[in-house]
């Protein structure tokens, strides 16, 4: 059963097409990587799915809901069921780790309770549990600007997890991290997919990482979906098609 169905998705910025007629389905619990050169539409695709960017044409169905038709409270509820983590973590650095994690619950709360930061005991317990899962139990009350890059990204993952999402969108989650922190983050994403059955859709710049972690890879070039298959089918020729000849050679060597 498909959790996410994207059909003929198109996005224009002025006259330029960022996405052209993109169609694919993602099954529940899959680990899918999206690769492609800068400006190929990866980021636009991820942001269209939770409506941070409004698509120009096409349709997106998530959990049987027509995402592009949603408004107001319905849109908030749909977003609450989709987690998201970012390249630059996008935390409120002056707040503590647990305050940032609890932000993941805002989509489920009434406006006034959220404004006043009134979280229930269950929500607070849940936040601490998630932080334990991510090895951050010693940093619960630490301010986020005191954390390392890898720790900040784990807070980002924790914030997505307390949303109880069925899918987590990851926009280049390891592009600002050193190799060992990057590996830790990718391993956590895999554990989340395997143990919790959460679908992962992750934008990556690193083809080798995508091949190692993903069950399925989507390759974009100039807004077109030019590759859709398992990592084993991503051969030299296909990489050239996605990245163009010169860059492709560098990636393969």
């Amino acid at each position: 059963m498909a959790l996410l169905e994207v059909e003929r998705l198109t996005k224009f910025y002025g006259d330029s097409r960022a996405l052209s007629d993109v169609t694919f389905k993602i099954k529940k619990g899959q680990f899918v990587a999206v690769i492609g050169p800068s400006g190929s539409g990866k980021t636009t695709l991820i942001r269209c799915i939770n409506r941070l960017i409004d698509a120009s044409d096409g349709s997106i169905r998530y959990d049987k809901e027509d995402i592009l038709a949603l408004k107001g409270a319905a849109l908030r509820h749909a977003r609450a069921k989709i987690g998201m983590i970012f390249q630059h973590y996008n935390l409120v650095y002056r707040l503590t780790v647990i305050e940032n994690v609890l932000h993941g619950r805002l989509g489920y709360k009434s406006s006034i309770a959220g404004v006043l930061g009134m979280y229930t005991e269950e929500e607070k317990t849940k936040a601490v549990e998630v932080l334990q899962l991510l090895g951050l139990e010693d940093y619960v009350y630490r301010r986020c600007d005191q954390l390392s890059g890898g720790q900040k990204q784990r807070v980002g993952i924790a914030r997505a997890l307390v949303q109880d999402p069925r899918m987590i969108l990851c926009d280049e989650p390891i592009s600002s991290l050193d190799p060992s922190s990057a590996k830790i983050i990718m391993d956590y994403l895999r554990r989340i997919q395997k143990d919790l059955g959460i679908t992962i859709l992750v934008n990556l710049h690193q083809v080798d990482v995508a091949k190692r972690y993903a069950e399925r890879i989507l390759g974009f070039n100039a807004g077109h979906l030019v590759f859709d298959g398992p990592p084993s089918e991503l051969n030299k020729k296909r990489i050239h098609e996605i990245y163009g000849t010169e860059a492709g050679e560098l990636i393969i060597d």
Partner: protein
Amino acid sequence: MSSLLIEKTSPTAYFRKQKLTLTLFLLGMIFVSWGASVLTQFDLFDAFAAIPRVAAWMTANLLPDAKAWSRLPRILDKLWDTILMSVMASVAASVVSFVFAILGSVTTRPNGVFAFLARTIASINRNIPVAAWAMIFLLSFGQSSFTGFLALFFATFGFLTRAFMETIDEASASSVEALRAAGASYSQVIAQAVIPASLPQMMSWVLYMVETNIRSATLVGLLTGSGIGFMFSVYYKSLQYRSASLVVLSIVVVVLAIELISNAVRRVIL
């Protein structure tokens, strides 16, 4: 191509060219200054030569005497009024500015129309100097401290709105995106991301405006007949220079003290 071109230039030639450019620039500057002084009949050397005489005159006529010191309590009293006035104007303006900044900033604006209006109103206010505000309100409200308050309020509002908008965009744009992605409502985003991320920087701007306004309050008081500026103009116009200079001295001391205090506060909050 470009790397080849760079290689053709030897380091000696490169640095010689750099020195030549600098020398020509300095000669140009000297010429412009000289030309300007001829045109305006201002003689720089005369001006410098006058400094000893001016200093002598100042010590003879501006040092506060016993009579001036006896007026110190009254001066301090007015100065206190002025400090309160500037704090009040800054705080009141900062509240209004915050609302306008939320409406006008790229990160938090609810729609384009509000944003345009907020930015335009703030921009008009910012580009009218505080002295002009004082004159405008002087015509409508006459000589009173309320006039002074309004002048400071509007000038501060214009500046702070701009500063707050930039602070919001700089400090909170990324976390606002994350909270929206998690399904947070507009008011939740403001309360949970925008305010915690930008409040310290905003407070720093308000402190800066308090300092600036104490300085401006002197000028505004001069024009609107209130506060310490009024005291200064009374002494000055009645030729009591020694008392007038004590007013200036006490303003300097207070401004320095406020600066020290606000720097200390900044160190704590930032």
